[in-house]
């Protein structure tokens, strides 16, 4: 059909049962350019990636590579995918992960070749080469995946939220790297929810909605605002970027959750005194290793600690904490049960509501509650009886949060509540959290991104070296820039300002 170099998709359709994942997708990607792909969760981005990588067959449509029909074999050999959640062998070393499946030493235990060594150096993970992947942080794991893709000599590189766990500096390096890849003649697609990055680092941005490419933004058109507008207009909502920080009450007074002299057994933080007010959203922000994540986990009862935790002024033992506090993990796999249906996941945290005593489960009541939560939290799923895995990432996260809120806790504790979630789901999740706080609940978040804090939180503590800064009122900052500056200042001089 087309003789143009690169990948062309024409009218690609993929159905999963009654759900149409791709509904006639047309998309072209040429070598030498970086094609950005934006779209809400469930729009079909992941399905497109799977089809190109030969992981699932398409139902209809044609795909051409350099004018020739695409084959499954090409997909599995020359198309490399760098995933959002690294898909590696945790029990092998970084080097072994890179060569696994492509060993070239016959029956011998494989060894790393010279070209690969250079790649390690290029991505700056040379010193981790002989460590087990399972022991390393997410950032190094993702770099390992990138190295693996590069080592495969792939022609088409698909990056699915590749830098969601990288620091800003690492991300900058990463984008330089994919630019080099593109210039060396690879077809590069960058799939991301971070619109600013998409706009800055791609040559064209394709917006996918409901399994179709609705618009391709080129040149001066590809601004974050334009992308956001295209996305949101298609979904009939308001852009999440338009902050609500102004009309926020700071009426939060009573402390619902208090930590007294709390120390982590593994020394992530020490003799911490911290109180979280009722009726407000409090955020902790801090880089990986600052202790912010660990503090939030301790509030969820998931870390072994010394010291006291008080809920509404009364001391609660960690083992009983879950009666008052609902915790939602950053990793969706850790908050949801893959073998249960959407409805079952929604009610899994309840006991008396769904059962008379330990026996006598009430299936009809479970269905009723699940239906109510599904409607209330706008979970997009065909029914509550389908498996949780068939939902998109954003909807899975909504189920996880709905289940946590549905258990009627006094305190809701969340770790990176919108990691890997599209902007329209993001806006809905923020609304849920704000609503929970407005109804007199208490919300504590761990965030890594300032925009998220600006969007949803009333007050904020910056965490560095296991210590908290004095609280900042988000409303006191005029705009996001000012807030970001304030946070950066506290992160760099955290200890000094804390005592002030």
């Amino acid at each position, binding site marked *: 059909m087309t003789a143009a170099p690169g990948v062309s998709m024409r009218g690609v359709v993929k159905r999963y049962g009654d759900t149409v994942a791709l509904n006639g997708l047309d998309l072209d990607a040429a070598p030498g350019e970086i094609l950005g792909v934006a779209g809400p969760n469930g729009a079909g981005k992941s399905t497109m990636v799977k089809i190109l990588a030969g992981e699932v067959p398409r139902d209809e449509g044609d795909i051409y590579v350099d004018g020739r029909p695409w084959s499954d074999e090409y997909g599995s050999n020359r198309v490399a995918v760098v995933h959002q959640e690294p898909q590696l062998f945790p029990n092998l070393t970084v080097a072994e992960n890179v060569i696994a499946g492509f060993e070239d030493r016959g029956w011998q235990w494989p060894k790393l070749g010279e070209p690969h060594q250079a790649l390690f150096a290029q991505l700056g993970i040379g010193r981790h080469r002989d460590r087990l992947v399972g022991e390393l942080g997410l950032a190094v794991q993702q770099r390992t995946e990138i190295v693996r893709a590069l080592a495969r000599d792939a022609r088409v590189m698909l990056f699915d939220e590749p830098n969601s766990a990288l620091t800003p500096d690492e991300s900058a390096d990463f984008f330089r790297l994919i630019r080099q890849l593109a210039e060396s003649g690879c077809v590069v697609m960058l799939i991301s929810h971070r619109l600013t990055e998409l706009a800055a680092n791609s040559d064209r941005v394709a917006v996918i909605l409901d399994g179709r490419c609705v618009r391709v933004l080129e040149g001066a058109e590809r601004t974050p605002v334009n992308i956001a507008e295209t996305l949101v207009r298609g979904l009939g909502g308001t852009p999440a970027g338009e902050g609500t920080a102004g009309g926020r009450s700071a009426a939060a007074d009573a402390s619902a959750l208090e930590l007294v002299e709390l120390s982590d057994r593994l020394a992530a933080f020490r003799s911490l005194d911290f109180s979280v007010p009722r009726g407000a959203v409090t955020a902790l922000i801090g880089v990986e290793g600052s202790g912010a994540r660990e503090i939030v986990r301790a509030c969820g009862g998931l870390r072994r600690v010394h010291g006291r935790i008080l809920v509404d002024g009364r001391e609660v033992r960690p083992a009983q904490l879950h009666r008052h506090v609902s915790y939602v993990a950053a990793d969706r796999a850790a908050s949801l*049960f893959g073998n249960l249906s959407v409805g079952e996941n929604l009610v899994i945290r309840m006991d008396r509501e769904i059962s008379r005593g330990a026996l006598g489960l009430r299936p009809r009541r479970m269905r009723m509650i699940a239906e109510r939560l599904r409607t209330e939290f706008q979970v997009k799923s065909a029914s509550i009886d389908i*498996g949780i895995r*068939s939902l998109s990432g954003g909807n899975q996260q909504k189920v996880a949060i709905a289940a946590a809120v549905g258990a009627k806790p006094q305190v809701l504790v969340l770790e990176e509540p919108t990691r890997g979630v599209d902007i329209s789901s993001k806006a809905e999740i923020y609304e849920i959290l704000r609503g929970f706080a407005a109804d007199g609940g208490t919300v504590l978040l761990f965030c890594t991104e300032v925009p998220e804090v600006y969007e949803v939180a009333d007050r904020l503590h910056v965490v560095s070296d296991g210590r908290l800064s004095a609280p900042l009122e988000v409303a006191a900052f005029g705009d996001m820039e000012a807030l970001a500056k304030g946070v950066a200042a506290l992160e760099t001089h955290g200890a000094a300002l804390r005592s002030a």
Partner: protein
Amino acid sequence: MHDGRPLRFTASMTNLAQNIAAVLAPARERGGRLGLAWTTLARIGGVTLAVLIVGLFFEIRTHGQLLISDNILTILRGLSTTAIMGFGLTVVIVAAEIDLSFAAVYGLSTNIVAVLWLTHGFPIYVAILIAFVAAILVGVFNAFFTSVVKIPSFIATLGSSTLVFGLTLWIGQTQNLSYQYPPTGQTVAHGQVTFFRNLGSGALPGKFPEQGIWALVLLVVFSLLLTRTLFGFRLKAIGGSRAAAEVVRLPVKKYTFLAFAICACTACLAGLLDFSFVGTAGPNDGSVYLFPVFAAVIIGGASLAGGKGSAIGTMMGALLLAVLANGVALIAAGPFASQLLLGTVTVGAVVIDRLTSRQRSLT
């Protein structure tokens, strides 16, 4: 407003009745008793198909001998021991654990009862109680090393299985004891013999095997337990994702203890029912059941990865094995044939189940 008790009692009885009705008719809303039974069978599709195929094969080979009523009752008795222990093992496997010690617990219980009752003159009721306490202790031992010390349950129960077997040999002194012919110098009260015999081999109308009744009652009990109780619901979740269970703070430890204790209790019960039926207890009691029970549970659709399994599936698995054993015996094909068929059917049924369930769960 009301004096709660009788009202609550009736309420709980209606609830129970509703639950039983719900289990027997799990998809009422889709209409029709028949449609119902069909969906249930379809859910355990592979094993149902295998039972039909194997049944049909032997029915033809034996010229109709398989399905005469006497033989059907024989099959029912044959499956009951496997099914009863299988129900307990299903509970453990749904929780994503493994129990290799149930066969040893079976032997422990028969030997405890035989020794206490027949050589030490304890009343049978006390002996049975002690056997159950011992079984529960084995379950607690398994759960302790699995969920507190955090040793993989495969290792923990492999160890406890051997330990329990050693204990059994010590208690029973490797002798065979019969309650119809007690050891010389010992007398056993007639009433107690009658009571014990009636546990597992009482005379029922139509020569219906009493062990079959036990199996059918426990089928209903375990179906309710796994599908209509908070315990079953949460156990399935715990088996599906241990990580999520920790985050959601489900009572993982408590449920692990309960699951292992339940499994040990079903093994103890199965042992005592067989002792009652056969009349003798010996050192090797139970050991032959290790593989068939596992096979029944796995054939019945339970996943060793956890989070999946049903009592009716296990029952069908046990039925398949019983039909197979019975059919092979009827055509007198020799001992190798039943082993060959057992192996083939175990793999085959799981393959069929995998194929049928792939279409049901997308992505």
